[in-house]
């Protein structure tokens, strides 16, 4: 009898202790949560302030850069260097640089811009040589009486990343022998080639290597296969 | 030199007439747009040659630049219009 009473008392005292401990843990937890919440809020505020300052700085930089480029373009176009026309030029390029500051320098990768420009200029002679070859090739196809063409559409995946390098690659493909970029979908280029020889030339990946070299991007791997027309229609029409 | 440029200009005009065949009879609207774009590039050079013949190339070069610009924008707009079937631009 007394033993059971003792046990019950022990039990209840343990329960009280347990409750107290739970409450204490709850209080501690909530305190920690509140402090962490306030901390995250404050951190977010700080990050926002920092980001705002950064983006404002970026906007200012872009506007100034656009202004300098546009003013140079204006002086070259105008060719009159008296005070009145230069003032007009400053006003005009200021208006346009404020209006379009986010267009000219969107998605610029941080990198060595000077080196990129030098490499791009070095890339141009090769491109012009390729355009020569392409035009003589097309002229040969046009003027030969039998017209030995066998058009096909090929697909390859590129590992280039930024949009500007995609544009350079796509336009180079369009300008070089017998190939036209038809579409880009998820990093895959769909290219219409006039003959099998031309498609094989593209598959060596020389042009892609050169473009990757200009923009200092990672080495690429490409998957290539000659496609039937019907599945491409499926892929392309899905996008509409 | 003027005679030489005149001959080149006349040759380009003859070529424009040949391209006009595609504009009139070309099957489908896409062939027509491609042909019109080709006519635009030829016209650009014809305008410059006219400038040389009239000895006012400093004026005609501006016109030719505007022509190139409007040709490009027109081609893009037509391509975008036809891409979706011409119902919703």
């Amino acid at each position, binding site marked *: 009898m007394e033993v059971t009473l003792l046990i019950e008392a022990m039990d209840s005292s343990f329960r009280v202790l347990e409750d107290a401990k739970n409450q204490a843990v709850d209080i501690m937890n909530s305190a920690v949560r509140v402090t962490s919440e306030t901390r995250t809020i404050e951190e977010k505020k700080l990050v926002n302030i920092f980001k705002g300052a950064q983006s404002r700085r970026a906007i200012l930089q872009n506007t100034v850069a656009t202004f300098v480029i546009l003013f140079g373009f204006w002086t070259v176009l105008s060719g009159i260097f008296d005070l009145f026309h230069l003032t007009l030029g400053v006003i005009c390029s200021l208006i346009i640089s404020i209006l379009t500051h986010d267009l000219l320098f969107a998605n610029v990768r941080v990198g060595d811009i000077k080196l990129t420009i030098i490499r791009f200029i070095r890339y141009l002679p090769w491109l012009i040589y390729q355009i020569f070859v392409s*035009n003589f090739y097309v002229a040969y196809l046009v003027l030969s009486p039998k017209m030995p063409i066998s058009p096909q559409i090929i697909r390859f995946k590129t590992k280039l990343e930024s949009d500007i390098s995609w544009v350079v690659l796509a336009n180079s493909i369009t300008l070089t022998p017998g190939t036209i970029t038809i579409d880009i979908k998820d990093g895959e280029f769909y290219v219409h080639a006039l003959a099998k020889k031309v498609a094989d030339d593209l598959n060596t990946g020389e042009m892609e290597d050169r473009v990757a070299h200009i923009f200092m991007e990672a080495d690429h791997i490409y998957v290539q296969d000659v496609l039937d027309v019907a599945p491409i229609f499926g892929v392309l029409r899905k996008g509409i | 030199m003027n005679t030489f440029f005149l001959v080149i200009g006349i040759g380009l005009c003859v070529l424009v007439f040949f391209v006009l065949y595609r504009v009139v009879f070309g099957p489908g609207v896409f062939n027509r747009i491609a042909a019109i774009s080709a006519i635009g590039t030829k016209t650009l*050079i014809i305008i410059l040659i006219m400038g040389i013949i009239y000895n006012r*190339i400093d004026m005609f*070069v501006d016109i030719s630049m505007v022509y190139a610009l409007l040709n490009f924008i027109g081609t893009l707009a037509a391509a*975008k219009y036809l891409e979706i079937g011409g119902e919703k631009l």
Partner: protein
Amino acid sequence: MNTASIIAALFIILFTVGGLFFFTTSTIGLLRFPDFFTRLHATGKGDTLAVLFSLIGIGIYEGLSLTGFKILLIAVFMFLAQPTATHAISKAGMRYGLQPWKKEDSRK
């Protein structure tokens, strides 16, 4: 007429006639090729190089001046615009549903 001007005239004639030649091939290609995409090969490439050649010829005739620089600007613009326009039309044609011509079509 000294030698320098004769050489300049030769270059002008060379480049301008080259431009006319490539314009001619692109036109013949536009008329001869079997379908829309192959015709774009003719106009998209042929016209770019032909415009470049003609502009170089006219630029040499004009010499180093403001107008010469504007002619250079036109060449740069054409280099950027012509492939883009070709790509835009070809993509529109593909999405519209034009079937590319294949070699087997001619044998049937």
